[in-house]
């Protein structure tokens, strides 16, 4: 069924239609919350609250933008509120890095590789968290969530030019912070 039709049915009170919309977007909303909070439980709670808000606000959705864009806007605003209330307290714990069991050498090596990859991601996200909010948001939407420029422009109510320049600045800032850890031309300082 088409998304527009699902939205219309959900607006008419069909839980099945809304369930389909949730199934389609739950991973995206959750991932967005996770990239800001970096805590699975908090991200899950936030994602649930976003869908609750969206459900209650459905009668006010007139289809001027895509449902996904509208949902992202709700998500961003809700996550920002949450972070403000939390005072941007860091929610990073060692539990974020999964534990793996070692049985033989190969498995141990693979586990070590996985841990290294996770540690890299962890470090990059840590640096992203350290960026000023407006840069963090735009970088998360584009480079972590993979939203298109036009969609970001609609979600944040920014002109495409502002999205372009702000994203450029955010990436430059992040690169500057990450430079000592990134892969150089000769492979030095590999992350």
């Amino acid at each position: 069924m088409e998304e527009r039709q699902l939205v219309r049915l959900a607006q008419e009170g069909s839980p099945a239609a809304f369930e389909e919309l949730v199934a389609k977007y739950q991973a995206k909303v959750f991932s967005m919350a996770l990239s800001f909070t970096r805590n699975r439980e908090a991200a899950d709670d936030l994602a649930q609250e976003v869908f609750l808000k969206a459900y209650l606000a459905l009668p006010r959705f007139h289809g001027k933008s895509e449902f996904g864009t509208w949902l992202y806007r709700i998500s961003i605003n809700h996550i920002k509120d949450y972070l403000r209330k939390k005072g941007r307290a860091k929610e990073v714990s060692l539990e974020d890095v999964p534990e793996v069991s070692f049985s033989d050498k190969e498995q141990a090596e693979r586990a070590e590789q996985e841990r290294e990859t996770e540690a890299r991601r962890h470090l990059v996200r840590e640096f992203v968290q350290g960026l000023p909010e407006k840069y963090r948001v735009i970088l998360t939407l584009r480079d972590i969530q993979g939203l298109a420029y036009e969609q970001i422009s609609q979600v944040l109510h920014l002109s495409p030019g502002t999205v372009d320049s702000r994203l450029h600045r955010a990436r430059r800032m992040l690169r500057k912070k990450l430079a000592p850890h990134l892969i150089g031309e000769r492979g030095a300082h590999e992350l």
Partner: protein
Amino acid sequence: MNCNKAEKWVLRSLDGRLDGRSEGLLREHLEACPSCRKAETEYRSMLALLRDGGEAAPLPRFWERLEPRLREEMEIAPLVFWERSCLRAIPVFLVLVGIAAGALFFTPQAAELSQSEALLLENVDPFSETGQIFSADKADTRNMMLIFASLEEKTPDRRPMP
């Protein structure tokens, strides 16, 4: 091409937003400029790390946990809506009461109107009766008519006092 422009184009290129001609110019610059080449490698590595693992699955039974919350919210929502409507209705009600009170206060009451004002309100010529009096032939008749007219006057202060 200077290095600042090249950096912008590197990012556009990594986003797949650079046209063929510009891509060619950028490649030329990168071949000649080691620092921009290094920047490109770093950006590529950074974006790969950011994009890696971008989408994660929420905790299990997401919908099963969400559905009861939705039902609960929907049970509360009509009440909340009613309360909000009531709150919004209060100032509207006060304004309406104010308008009604103002209308009552400023509208002249029938009891306060003089006879001629009442006649004017009824769209009747207030001089018609006076005209009849003055058109009477005899002076006695005129006097008598004037006396009776004054007795019929509703406003006490206009009545001739004994």
